[in-house]
């Protein structure tokens, strides 16, 4: 198994923390992982993205321009990264934040109404976990239990009481796949 992923959206949508959670969870399962953020001006309000690689083998390059899965949380990121998915790969995207759906016919496309569902959970910030859940339904490369273990590392202690809510969001996301 070697999964190369890019997660892209606005700063503040939980792009970097979603990627970090996934990377931590991979390490919990003793896989080789890389988390590579785009850093700099885009951290201060513009678009943000991170590359995550989860692999059974040592990873050579952390610099990648074709991905098995692209997870897209806004329109500018869709414009930029739709073409970056490998033929036969997956595009998982957030329905409310992307106006123009992808046009690639050689990739599997998953439209997830995560923002809307997060509102129903009374916490819009769970949007990224709903998307992560959806991704794990599309590509079950990591166990949910490992994600929960990872959240203990990624979330500061004062937010650990939110882990059950995050689990709910993850499982909700998994159920949303294939429903659109």
């Amino acid at each position, binding site marked *: 198994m070697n999964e190369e992923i890019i997660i892209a959206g606005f700063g503040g949508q939980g792009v970097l923390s979603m990627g*970090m959670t996934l*990377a*931590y969870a991979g*390490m919990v399962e*003793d896989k*080789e*992982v*890389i*988390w*590579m*953020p785009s*850093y*700099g*001006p885009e951290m201060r309000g513009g678009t943000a993205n991170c590359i995550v690689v989860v692999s059974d083998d040592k990873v*050579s*390059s*952390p*610099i*990648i*321009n*074709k991905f098995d899965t692209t997870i897209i949380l806004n329109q500018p990121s869709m414009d930029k990264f739709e073409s970056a998915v490998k033929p036969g790969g997956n595009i998982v995207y957030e329905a409310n934040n992307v106006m123009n759906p992808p046009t690639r016919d050689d990739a599997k496309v998953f439209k997830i109404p995560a923002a809307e569902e997060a509102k129903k959970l009374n916490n819009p910030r769970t949007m990224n976990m709903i998307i992560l859940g959806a991704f794990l339904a599309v590509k079950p490369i990591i166990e949910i239990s490992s994600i929960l273990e990872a959240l203990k*590392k990624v979330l500061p202690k004062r937010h650990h009481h939110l882990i059950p809510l995050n689990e709910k969001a993850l499982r909700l996301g998994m159920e949303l796949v294939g429903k659109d």
Partner: protein
Amino acid sequence: MNKKQLMKGNEALAEAAIRAGLQGYFGYPITPQSELLEYMSRELHKRGGAFVQAESEIASINMVYGAAGAGARVMTSTSSPGYSLMQEGISYIACAELPCLLVNVVRGGPGLGTIQPSQGDYFQAVKGGGHGDYKLIVLAPNSVQEMADFTYIGFDLADQYRMPVLILTDGALGQMMESVVFPEYDIEKNRTNHSSWATTGRVNGREQHVITSLHLQSEDMEKQNQILQKKYRKIEENEVRFETIQTEDADFLLVAYGLSARIAHKAVNLAREEGLKVGLLRPISLYPFPYQAIEDLSAKVSGILTVEMSAGQMVEDVRLAVNGKVPVGFYGRMGGMIPQPDEILEEIKKLYSPKRRQ
């Protein structure tokens, strides 16, 4: 204790330095190195060291000079424009023969440049940077694990040769997270005794220790230069470090260091999938440079491609090593742009030919 941890390269380097018995850190914040300084500000004072945020990079390096003169295990870290500011102090420390660790998390230049990763400071790192005939041992990690490992090695080499050691890395390696395991390190066993030269106070009538880089008599200055040159010859003999990947049957060779070597490794895999016999040599010590290893391999391949995140700097050392025996091409991106594996593959295809074997 020796658990796998997920860390940024900058943080792993900081943690390794503290585990290696760091006594003093002096620095000034600059992206993309700031996590290193932040980590030190949070951790070092709790674990027996002194953290000082200086008023500038010039102050930082001179604080390093002073503390190293007192025999303490010390370091500073910065990024390209900050490293330029430090050059005068580094030249002084090299001349005064003091051990310390320097870290340059390189960003794109010239000028104030960009905060994205680059390898444009190679010349500055290995050819001098400051004034006068001096060298630094320069180590180039290519993973978060090596950011930690080379920190221990760097401190030990600095002690052993009484000179500054530079870890030359870049913004991407500093910012990215990978798993890292910190090896056991015995500070007592590894630290060299500095009592014969350190300025620790003239107690019990011991002779005076003088640390200076000023020798106004030219005869004395030449003597000091000869001492340095003798040391550098010894380092060139004993401290060359490099890695080879799939070079045994290679018809064509890539040479790249640091992050570029990771990308080049992927390009080797892509080329092999298409039946092209490509190998990779990765210089780990940029000074001393693996001239001999490259010369040896150049006899076995039809051509060489050097890949850098610069306009082409290390390629000059590769050409010196090859000495015209085979063509040496170059592919690079500048100003914070990073070469992609498939771009490198395209370059390989332009230059590749199977080696004609006798």
